[in-house]
């Protein structure tokens, strides 16, 4: 029961993350690609209620950030305060009006999670990046596990030459030098790939490359399940293959399916970093958690700007929620 108590929490966290991703244009205060060249690596903006004179303001406000005189870091310019506005309006480059949940008046900026090396708002990038990372992870997981489950079950259930063909090709897939194949894929594709195409490519590549490992796992389970006495009995009563798989064999694999899903989904979010490096993922300036985390590969970013770790924390939270979810479902499944 203790495990079940975590279910609402995990579900709520995952739902919140996905809803936030979908509502990114509204929730984020800025365009995720908007650069502020005077504000690289600005720390998170502090939101104040009490000003320098000790007066309490009914509406939270921020100060404008300015470079410190020695060129190292930032300080607040306390001469003027800028109240935080709800439902702030602005216009994008093409001239269309947009509404954001909150914002401040120019020239002040509100960077609740700091800014990156180009002075772009980390919060806006995190929210927009979640759209790509969360959904790419989710769809790629569904694709690779779906394919792996289908082929693994077929191989395990029918055995003999079907099994041999499928499992040898699985081994071939595991043994292929993927890095070089991906180089080749990049060479064949046109250089200009739109964000939508990049997203599809990402999902397809991950899903198709990684079906072999789950397929081997599912085959093992199906192999032992089809020899169980109740399966043999059902077969004796004349049950069809499809019925047997659906009614008796598939349910045995669902626990593993969920555990695997929880394990690989966060891995696939990270796989995007590698693919982006090879020019196959989402490229600048479109944010994704993968390319945001890639900034941490630089030593100076790693040691100097803690807010650059935020996509990593978000990824950790999402992974934990997925894991809790799968554990609950797994236990519920075995209790049945």
């Amino acid at each position: 029961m203790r495990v079940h108590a975590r279910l609402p929490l995990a579900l709520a966290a995952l739902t919140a993350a996905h809803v936030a991703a979908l509502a990114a244009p509204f929730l984020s205060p800025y365009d995720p690609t908007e650069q502020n060249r005077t504000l690289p690596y600005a720390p998170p903006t502090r939101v104040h209620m009490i000003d320098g004179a000790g007066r309490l303001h009914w509406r939270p406000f921020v100060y404008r950030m300015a470079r410190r005189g020695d060129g190292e870091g930032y300080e607040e310019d306390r001469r003027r305060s800028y109240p935080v506005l709800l439902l702030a309006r602005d216009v994008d480059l093409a001239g269309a009006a947009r509404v954001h949940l909150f914002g401040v008046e120019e020239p002040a900026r509100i960077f609740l999670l700091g800014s990156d090396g180009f002075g772009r708002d980390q919060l806006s990038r995190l929210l927009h990046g979640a759209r790509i990372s969360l959904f790419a992870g989710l769809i790629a997981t569904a694709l690779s596990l779906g394919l792996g489950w289908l082929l693994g079950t077929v191989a395990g259930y029918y055995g003999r030459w079907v099994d041999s063909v499928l499992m040898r090709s699985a081994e071939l897939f595991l043994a292929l030098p993927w890095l070089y194949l991906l180089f080749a894929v990049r060479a064949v594709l046109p250089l200009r790939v739109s964000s939508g195409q990049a997203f599809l490519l990402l999902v397809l590549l991950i899903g198709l490359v990684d079906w072999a490992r789950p397929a081997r796992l599912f085959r093992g389970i199906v192999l032992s399940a089809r020899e169980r006495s109740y399966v043999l009995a059902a077969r004796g009563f004349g049950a069809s293959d499809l019925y047997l798989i659906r009614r008796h064999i598939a349910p045995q694999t669902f626990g593993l399916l969920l555990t695997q899903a929880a394990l690989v989904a966060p891995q696939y979010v990270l796989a995007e970093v590698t693919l982006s490096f090879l020019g196959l993922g989402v490229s600048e300036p479109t944010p994704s958690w993968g390319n945001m985390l890639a900034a941490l590969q630089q030593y100076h970013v790693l040691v100097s700007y803690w807010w650059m770790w935020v996509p990593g924390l978000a990824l950790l939270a999402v992974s934990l929620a997925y894991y809790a979810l799968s554990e609950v479902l797994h236990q519920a499944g075995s209790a049945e």
Partner: protein
Amino acid sequence: MLAAGAALLCWRAAAQGPDPADLLRTEHEVGRAGGRLVFALRTEPKTLNPVTAVDSASRDVIGRMAADLVHIDRQTQQTTPALAKSWSVSSDGRRYTLELRRGLRFSDGHPLDADDVVFSFQCYLDERNGSSQRDLLVVGGKPAVVRKLDTYQIAFEIEQPYAAAERLFDSFAILPRHLLAKAQQEGRLPQAWTLSTPPAEIAGLGPFRLRSYVPGDRLVLERNPYYWKVDGVGRPLPYLDEIVFLLVPSEDAQVIRFKAGETDLISRLSAENFTVLAREQGGRLRLEDLGPGLEYSFLFFNLNDLPPGRLDTIARKQAWFSQTAFRQAVSATLDREGMVQLVYQGRAVPLASHVTPGNKLWLNRALPPPARSLARARDLLARAGFSWKDGTLRDGTGSPVEFTIVTNAANTARVHLATIIQDDLRQLGLSVQVVPIENRALLDRVFQSHDYDAALMALGSGDADPNGEMNVWLSNGATHLWHLGQSRPATSWEQEIDELMRRQLVTRDASERKRLYDRVQALVAENLPLIPLVSPDVLVGTRARLGNFRPAVLDHNVLWNADELFWRP
């Protein structure tokens, strides 16, 4: 000549033999003998053979073990006598006579004479050896002829006069004939002097000689007792007993090892790591910003002749790329100051042409600094027939102007530069996509398949002299990046650059050469075949105790005067 005056001749009994020797006396701070210096290499040296070495790690090591006839002082960028104590040029500029120092010995104790010099150039010129330096010795289509006049005199003859030919001698390591003649005769020279060769079979004229090599870990050089320089009070150089080259593959790992005190010198630091080190040092370290080096980064458009049928979309875009006004508009839109601040934290300079302010002798100071002006860019484009609709730039036929920029994915700074360019051009209504790709794929696209719109790269020549840039600017040059393999100059300004570059090559008057090369820079700044971006500062560091540390923007930035480095107490 400034440096020639500095090098005083000094007669004295050589420490290891009865011959009196022509030693070179240096003028810098007199130091203390002893100690070891640790330096990290990013990759493992491939060879110790000066004839075949091309990778920078091999050259870093070989540079400490070998010496040349005439040397370019890395600080003044002028030539100074080295193994040759003097030289003279014939009046037609085709014949150089060099006088060797007397009584010098290789690091194994064997004496040096003119036969070794003749043998060395024979090795570099032998096509079987495939030396990358061979091309430098082929002037006017004919290889140089090197002859022995007597034991200490050599004649060096070239087909046509060649400006600053004495600079050629720099980095041609003189080889020991007694150790390599057999390998050369049998055509095995490229296989000689590998990393597994016993130290006793390798000898050079540099300040250090090989002691030991542990694959994948370290290479140790020890003091050469026969070295040919002495300090101001006549004590033999070098001061250090040992130089240890450690293998540390990434820059970040090198920074961590340097900070931990495991290495003593670091060069080619990124601005960010330089800032981190400067913040954490506390007086133990000495970090120096040498100002811009010779490296220049640039954006260029694909102007190659494309094979018909393939790459049609690029061919269509070339209608924009080939217009000088289009390239000028792109250049005027770029926020180079922003690049300097965001990518290099202020440790770089914006460039107007390909010659950086680090090149003290050749920079054309009359060129105005690159100015950013969106208004000028819009004006240029409007007059070239471009127009705007819904905020996007369109060409005369109404199609939107969009292109991709490829760059090396492993180089974070370049990817960041491209990202800034992308954002700048968005202000102009241009849609640009940045495609970071793996470096070999990038070079393949630029040099072989020509399947790219625009690319962001950087070049940096080893020497400040324009002769090192011939391959970039001649229209048939191997590195004429934007339009390779031209049988004749495609544009009038490329033809003019060809003429100017060829003329400066055979002009012997230095100020006349400068005038010619100034014009080349002006043509580049106007026509922008390469749109110059920025030149990063050369950033180096060492321990505060290291004496005679005089880093330079020329290669090798920190080890070039390894013979004079010493540890203060």
